[in-house]
């Protein structure tokens, strides 16, 4: 571990200015593309983000409000995603990572409306290998899926989903994952898979999207997030690097 922290120090000292020098990019006005050039005005601010670890920026909490879900839906999503990705010795689970906020916010945009996907009729049931052929968008699927999750809980355990024990919640979700629930409008496993994949997205996407709170998802697996360069470590043994987010990249 001592080696790791030494390596950490080394990496932190690799400031943007140094990086620009050592990579030889800033030399001689070489026309190498403006994305990098844009970084230059920010170069002296790079180490301010050290503060963030102990003192998360207050502004982040303003995004913890709902754009789509009802309060009941939100609570259910919080509970269900926590079962998919529970808190454990490694670190926080979906709930503390803000996954339910992430999903809510995603549903309010392109993804929720399937607006960059082909949604033209006619709709026919196809082979599994032909992919999703339904007419419902993700918002509608979530609405129906959550309603059915609740119905199934009431039928099987006479309780709301959020009031079930962890084991019972797992059991209900397993019924969805294995298509053991009788629903005609949506595929139970299709809904479950969407819930599962969006849980991972919420746990590990840039905190910009309201999940992966404090980059804790990344820290849990030693993922360094958005780094300018890995030329110093690419040929080395495993190295722990404190994560950076796109916000850090912006230098504000």
């Amino acid at each position, binding site marked *: 571990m001592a080696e790791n922290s030494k390596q950490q120090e080394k990496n932190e000292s690799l400031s943007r200015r140094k990086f620009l020098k050592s990579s030889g990019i800033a030399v001689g006005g070489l026309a190498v593309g403006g994305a*990098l050039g844009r970084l230059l005005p920010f170069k002296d601010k790079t180490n301010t983000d050290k503060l963030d670890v102990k003192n998360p920026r207050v502004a982040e909490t303003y995004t913890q409000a709902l754009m789509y879900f009802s309060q009941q839906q939100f609570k259910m999503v919080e509970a269900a995603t926590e079962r998919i990705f529970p808190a454990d010795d490694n670190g926080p689970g979906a709930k503390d990572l803000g996954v339910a906020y992430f999903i809510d916010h995603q549903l309010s945009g392109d993804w929720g409306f399937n607006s960059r996907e*082909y949604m033209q009729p006619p709709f026919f049931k196809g082979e599994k290998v032909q992919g999703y052929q339904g007419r419902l968008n993700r918002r509608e699927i979530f609405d129906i899926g959550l309603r059915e999750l609740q119905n199934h809980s009431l039928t099987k355990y006479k309780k709301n989903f959020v009031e079930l024990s962890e084991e019972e919640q797992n059991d209900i979700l397993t019924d969805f994952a294995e298509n053991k629930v009788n629903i005609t409008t949506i595929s139970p496993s299709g809904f479950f898979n969407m819930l599962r994949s969006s849980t991972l997205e919420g746990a590990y996407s840039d905190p*910009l999207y309201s999940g992966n709170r404090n980059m804790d998802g990344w820290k849990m697996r030693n993922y360094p997030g958005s780094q300018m360069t*890995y030329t110093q470590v690419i040929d080395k043994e*495993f190295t722990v690097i404190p994560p950076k987010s796109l916000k850090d990249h912006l230098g504000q």
Partner: protein
Amino acid sequence: MAKKLPKVDVVIVGVGWAGGIIAAELTKQGLNCVGLERGKERKTEDYFMVHDELRYALRYDLMQNLSKETITFRGNEKLRALPMRQYGSFILGDGLGGSGVHWNGQTYRFLPYDFEIRSKTIERYGEKKIPADMTIQDWGITYDELEPYFDKFEKMAGISGEENPLAGKRSSPYPTPPMKTTPALEKFKKAAINLKLHPYNRPSANLSEAYTNPDGVARAACQYCAYCERFGCEYGAKADPVVTVIPVAKKTGKFEIRTHSNVRRVLKSGNKATGVMYVDTTTGEEIEQPADIVVLTSYVFNNVRLLLQSGIGRPYDPTTGAGVIGKNYAYQVQKGNATGFFEKEEFNTFAGAGALGMTVDDFNGDNFDHSNLNFIHGGSIAISQTGLRPISNNKVPKGTPTWGKEFKANSVKYANRVLSVGGQGASMPFKHHYLDLDPTYKDEFGDPLIRITYDFEEQDRQLAKYLSDRCKEIMKEMGADHIDTMEELGPYDITTYQSTHNTGGIIMGADPNTSAVNNYSQMWEAENVFVVGASAFAHNSGYNPTGTVGALSYRAAEGILSYKQKGGILA
């Protein structure tokens, strides 16, 4: 009535690698070119916020908007083709630079065997080796004839690499040295050498060092930031048309790029094209652009779709095997691989570059004896260190549940303890694998979508299993504590990503009866139409296609220049 513009020498449809290369070469010689690009302008500055896995890798920010246009797919002719409503198996580029913006940069040359596959297979194994419905044919060009064009492409892009002992002869070394070697790659290399294989650093378009190409374009070295495939390069270190050939063409003052210009028809009179009709997608206006020469350089699917919609060339008929447009659609066999879990070691696999890897070709092409095997060709086998981004990489040993406590614990535990060795299997064409126009589904203009009829064959199942077993042997030698491999290929599934290496449909050959274009990518049936790209591949090899697309593009550019002077069929 469409607005009619003044005539130009050449109109280029789609400004990616092929379109960019052709524009650069033609404008250098003084030809006036217009490039019509359906997507938007792109530049390096766009990638300031590019380290965003959600936006680019999972929401496909750089890709074609499927709500406007997609493809339809069915496994065989008895089924109803249905639209690919969401991305999966492959991702379609959009915008200036096309797929050349979001590629990984793995830049191989197809093998000498590839270009003469039918002759060489018969020569070594006899005609019976080729199944009756497998429609492999020679490309009408040899590796040696194409070598100077590979060389030109590699020098333009600054490919970083080292000699591959099992590939075709090179006229000169790679312009830049190989990329850095990592502990994971070293492990693969040692294992491969122990198994008497021939590992080499994968040829890379992510520059190993700063490089100035013969056109005077200077680019910086790769920073191994791990955001290549599906992303644009924030450094311009990854060769892409926007930072290489397009500026060269623009500098001549003879290349006009019109973005948001979606071409719907190639216009013709008799056996020649007269220009194209396109829609300015910002205004909806239909515009006619007359030209002496029409060059189609969009992706495979739209090259084919444009010809079929425009009534140029004889459409392929799968029942008789006659006709050529849409013939020999091929893909790739990507699933033969092995995943190794290491209990005692962690790796910096969060870092990487799109083309960082180590490859062996001992089981590619005809580099090994197929006498007792039920397939031909093979595939490259490689370890890749492209950067394991956290949403998409949560590998757990087989038997672990896909969610819940145990899943989380294992996915976190193995986050930096997984290495994969994968086979990139070649794809042979079959009589019943083809592209045509879908009878039902339309794009935003009401034009029919292209329809893919394709499935894996016994050839593919055998090949995938064979590659999977070889990958497993290497992974075992690398010392993995637990190895998972593909046991059975299964049917072709459009929902899971495999590769954006779709090929064929307007294939190259020496015979106008069995091919659509000659070895200058010139259409036999319309001499002033050149169709350039992987659509010209008569089959797909066990490599990434871009190196060969680049070579064919340089060759086509030479052909177009010579056609402009002399006219007539060039080969």
